[in-house]
């Protein structure tokens, strides 16, 4: 049995750990509110954009002359895998769940004979993927200097991707991120960026309306203008969802840690009290038996 002094030191150290995790939890809760708001405010733009593009493409999809961003490069040999993670750890399974999903996708692609390139956003994903796929990593986006995710940041990233696509460095781009569902649940998601994924056409009754659109300047130019923006919007929402998920994951992880620390303190305190009691009883026995011997 450890002696009293050791126990005391351990209790103190767990207590200070609990203070830290508690503080982190509260910081994450405050940040979560902001991140969640940002993610929710960004959703209308992305959904409207998707709706407009859906209308535009469904009424006049030309598979021969359309923009390669829409119809693809004509093959799907080279993949660009974008893995969005956080800059910091201590957020539960947040990063590892994205990485796990990305890894299984990558190994599927590799076994299908495709070649891959990896672009990582956020330090944690790069660290975890470097060991296995270090040779395929082509670029990394550092988010550590960015306090608040803005549309400009997303457009810098999408600019990089589009430039690579125009050089035909890859045929298909997919992004991995965590979709924010609630504080306790974040779902790792995989989304195709290029070629632009259209929703399955389920409602045909709205088609009559779509055909009567006038376009200014012309459809080709509008598409050329709109598609990169739609991709930027997708990346932007993915990053915001990721940001909210990160804070949510950290908050629940730190909540768990705080609770565990509390339990540990209780256990240690009981142990401490018992051993103190045992020591006192021991001393009493010694005194009494000493007195009897006289």
């Amino acid at each position, binding site marked *: 049995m450890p002696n009293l002094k050791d126990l005391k030191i351990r209790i103190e150290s767990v207590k200070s750990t609990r203070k830290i995790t508690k503080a982190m939890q509260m910081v994450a809760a405050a940040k979560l509110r902001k991140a969640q708001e*940002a993610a929710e*405010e*960004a959703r*209308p*733009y*992305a959904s*409207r*954009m998707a709706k*407009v593009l859906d*209308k*535009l493409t469904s009424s006049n999809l030309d598979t021969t002359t359309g923009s390669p961003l829409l119809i693809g490069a004509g093959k799907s040999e080279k993949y660009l895998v974008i893995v969005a993670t956080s800059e910091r750890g201590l957020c539960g399974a947040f990063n590892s769940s994205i990485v796990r999903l990305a890894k299984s996708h990558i190994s599927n692609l590799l076994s299908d004979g495709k070649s891959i390139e990896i672009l990582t956003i956020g330090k944690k994903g790069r660290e975890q993927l470097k060991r296995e796929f270090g040779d395929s990593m082509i670029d990394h986006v550092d988010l550590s200097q960015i306090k608040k995710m*803005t*549309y*400009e940041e*997303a*457009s810098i990233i999408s*600019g990089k991707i589009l*430039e690579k696509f*125009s050089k035909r460095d890859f045929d298909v781009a997919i992004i991995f991120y965590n979709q924010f569902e609630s504080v306790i649940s974040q779902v790792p998601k995989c989304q195709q960026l290029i070629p632009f994924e259209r929703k399955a056409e389920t409602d045909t009754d709205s088609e009559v*309306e779509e055909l*009567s*659109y*006038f*376009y*200014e*300047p012309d459809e080709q*130019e*509008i598409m*050329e*203008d*709109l598609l990169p*923006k739609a991709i*930027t*919007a997708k990346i*932007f929402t993915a990053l915001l969802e990721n940001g909210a998920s990160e804070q949510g994951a950290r908050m629940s992880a730190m909540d768990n840690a705080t609770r565990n620390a509390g339990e540990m303190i209780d256990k240690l305190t009981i142990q401490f009290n018992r051993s103190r009691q045992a020591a006192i009883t021991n001393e009493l026995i010694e005194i009494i038996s000493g007195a009897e011997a006289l």
Partner: protein
Amino acid sequence: MSEDRFNFELVTPEKVLVSREVESVCIPGVEGDMTILANHSALATAIRPGYLKVEESGKSETYFLAGGFVEISQKEVILLAEKAALESDVSVEIITDLIQKTEQALEHASELQKCVLAKKLNDLKSIKDQLQK
């Protein structure tokens, strides 16, 4: 909804700026400014940098737009802007910043985009000149 009003939405990537019934909006389209009233025919157009005027019951608000896209249908008008701000919040610095970014984009743009970007740059410069006066 009354006869002469329609639903107008101004959406930026960061948030929804306007979402209400208005009487008319004046949009800086790439092919020229246009005023939209209720029951406009369906139209989709790109937007050049410029000012958007929203009018309702005698009051009007002016927003600065840095390009975007507008979709006009019978029911509603949806404006997707990359960047939008109230006219009073726009400063020369913001415009200068945008001009720099556009110039950078112009350097490595494809032929088709170049023409669009060059136009955009011109529009931004003229707005800057106006502001400085």
